[in-house]
């Protein structure tokens, strides 16, 4: 990886801070305290991921897409955003959701299957995760064109994986973003695997180099280096805010776990590869940096550990305590206002449920508004 052309790196895997004249200024405000806070977020996000994976194995979640190994790409970019920026992500950006302040229970809601979506996007300026590969890039570009019309200086940021670059939606979004010079940041987490398809099959050139074909400037960043990711994201955001149009960021990282809890990567992946990437772990790197700076005190470690454990407890109790939806809830949130067609369906469904003769199933329309 170190031989890669133009790979932006500010912290080496051994935790050494290296200087980069172009990108250093973008993170010069990150002092000791902020560094510890980034370390905390990275650790907490990994803990969330571990707990959610366990919850799936215990039958409490239907499915979970682990982000193990991709923490720095998510925290570095997520923490660079302004409150009025808007995120359109894939299903794996649960770390970004945490940074945006999404409620922990809401993160698990959709994976437990008790709701069609987990939260109100406008409360945290982050759309609910898109399952369709790459579709969110179009939403982001459209939103960014809206920002232009409003004359605002906020930015739409869209996250997707290396597999998504083969999708039509992503390519269409890039064309439109370039045509309209929309304030949108395309953040590609290149985690090297699209389920079982290695990235080299999807792209014979580096993914970042594709952007040039659309007339969009790109940055290729070490996705396991939280500072480098933050710097690159800030560069892209700044360009978008000042009328410079879209930027494409390729964060080179690695999915250390399975695609989802229903996947077994040992069937298609070399164990040596995993070992290579474990040596570039995003959290160990920050930990080593803190150690070099003498910041990794017992107090800091204890605080981060306690925070991670309390978040884990919160997500578990929130997930398990979630009430099951009522059958009639299916009619909620379909349309913003009632209409006769839906009322009719609702009436039919209520009568159908009543035919079971089971009082629990025969909930009348009250709950359905």
């Amino acid at each position, binding site marked *: 990886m170190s031989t890669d052309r133009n790979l932006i790196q500010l912290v080496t895997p051994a935790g050494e801070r290296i200087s980069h004249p172009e990108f250093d200024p973008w993170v010069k405000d990150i002092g000791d305290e902020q560094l510890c806070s980034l370390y905390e977020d990275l650790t907490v996000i990994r803990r969330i991921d*571990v707990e959610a994976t366990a919850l799936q194995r*215990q*039958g409490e979640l239907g499915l979970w897409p682990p982000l193990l190994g991709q923490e720095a790409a998510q925290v570095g970019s997520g923490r660079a955003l302004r409150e009025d920026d808007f995120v359109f992500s894939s299903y794996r950006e649960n770390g970004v959701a945490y940074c945006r302040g999404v409620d922990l229970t809401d993160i698990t809601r959709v994976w437990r299957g008790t709701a069609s979506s987990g939260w109100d996007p406008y409360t945290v300026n982050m759309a609910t995760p898109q399952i369709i590969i790459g579709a969110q890039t179009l939403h982001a570009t459209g939103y960014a064109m809206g920002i232009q019309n409003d004359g605002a200086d906020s930015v739409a940021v869209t996250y997707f994986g290396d597999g998504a670059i083969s999708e039509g939606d992503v390519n269409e979004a890039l064309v439109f973003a370039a045509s309209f010079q929309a304030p949108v940041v395309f953040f590609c987490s290149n985690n090297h695997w699209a389920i079982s398809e290695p990235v080299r099959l999807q792209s014979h050139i580096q993914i970042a180099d594709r952007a040039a074909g659309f007339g969009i400037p790109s940055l290729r960043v070490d996705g396991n280096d939280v500072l480098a990711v933050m710097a690159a994201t800030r560069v892209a955001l700044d360009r978008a805010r000042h009328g410079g149009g879209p930027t494409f960021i390729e964060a080179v990282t690695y999915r250390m776990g399975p695609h989802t809890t*229903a996947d077994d990567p040992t069937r298609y992946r070399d164990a040596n590869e995993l070992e290579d990437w474990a040596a570039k772990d995003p959290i160990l790197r920050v930990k080593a940096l803190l150690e070099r700076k003498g910041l990794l005190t017992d107090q800091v470690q204890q605080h981060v550990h306690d925070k991670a454990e309390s978040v884990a407890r919160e997500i578990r109790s929130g997930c398990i305590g979630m009430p099951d939806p009522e059958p009639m809830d299916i009619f909620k949130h379909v349309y913003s206002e009632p209409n006769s067609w839906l009322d009719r369906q609702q009436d039919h469904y209520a009568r159908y449920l009543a035919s079971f003769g089971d009082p629990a199933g025969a909930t009348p329309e009250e709950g359905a508004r």
Partner: protein
Amino acid sequence: MIKEFRLPDLGEGLTESEILSWKVAVGDTVTLNQVIAEVETAKAVVELPSPFAGVITALHEEPGTIVEVGKPIVSFEVADDGGASPSGAAPAGVATAAAGAAKREPNLVGYGAVVESSGRPARRARTFTTPAVEHVRGPVVEPVRPENPVVEPVETDTAERPRSTPPVRKLAKDLGVELAAVAGTGAGGLITREDVQNFVGGGELSAPVRHLSAVSDSGSPAGLAPQGGREVRTPIKGVRKFTAAAMVASAFTAPHATEFLTVDVTPTMDLLAKLKTSRAFSGYKLTPLTLVAKAVLIALRRNPSLNSRWEEASQEIVQFNYVNLGIAAATPRGLTVPNIKDADTLSLLELSAALTGLTETARAGKTAPADLSGGTISITNIGVFGIDAGTPILNPGEAAILAMGAVRKMPWEFQDEVALRQVMTLSLSFDHRLVDGEQGSRFLADIGAILAEPGMVLTMV
């Protein structure tokens, strides 16, 4: 209080999983998320983290058992702190949903679950989560209503579902009644609510009786094995079942003919020794198999009919203009025959690397499914077990398989005298439907000629 942990759907739409091993024993104190078992689904081997902190009071399933999703597998004594119960409605809901469909296809492209390999018996007695006696704790006049019946599909999916309506099916499910056993009195044989109720009330098989008989029938296959007895009974499943099916299919569809040829391979062994010390091959694993494989590939060019397939369905003989060379490999999980794609285009160096990679991957159990299909001819190396000859069974869909025997020092005719030579027996089975004795014999003779004098290749290519 006692808490049960039911087997969840560990993938997407799985109906069962196999308990591989328990990491805990009855009486152990476990913490939340401590790994308690290793479980194999159709998709992956996964570790089960404990959903509770407490003491293990019972392990309900033996390792090696295939368990339906939703069945309790372990019980815990948990401190009664009034916390939210994880084994609430969600797992039960999962159980009903999963059991409701007889066979479910994996629902994402890219997931390799082979549904038909799940080994579900076509018919199995109904089982309930706990012994029937324990259910009688409510008023006795109530129909016995197990809290979470594991409703299994009792008919194979080819059978037509008895006609009824969803509410009636739910009633029947709640009462533990198999609709197939109920006579319908409604229009066109429709089973009505009354039919189900009458069946429970006055049918010749009353519900409790059915439960009792079910419990006695429901022992797991492993339970039949007497502990330390004179016989060990292993359920036929997995790779063994697959191998058996393939062997039966092959042996009883393709008429096998087997020919034997014993060859003085001393010159080949000399060549092997020479190559091993040469710079070009340093770091490569050269074995007699490497050279036999090369000889097979060269001989195939002159005898292409051995590299073909009889296709019954289309009534065609498919002649392959490429060779995907299968190598039978004994792995800890049984026999597999991964193949080397386009082996005929590989140099000896590439072939040797491919062979090493192939067998190592197979032994590690990591062979990709694509490497197990599409073979055109196979080699089995019985020589590594010290065996000389035998009748190899064709890998289904292939026209020939060569068994190479052990290389032995034997007294052998050499330049009109008896000398101690290195000798190997080759056994070639071929599908007599598309290969005649002539082609089979010429092919085998060519392989023998190359191994007896590698220089003969100059006359063949």
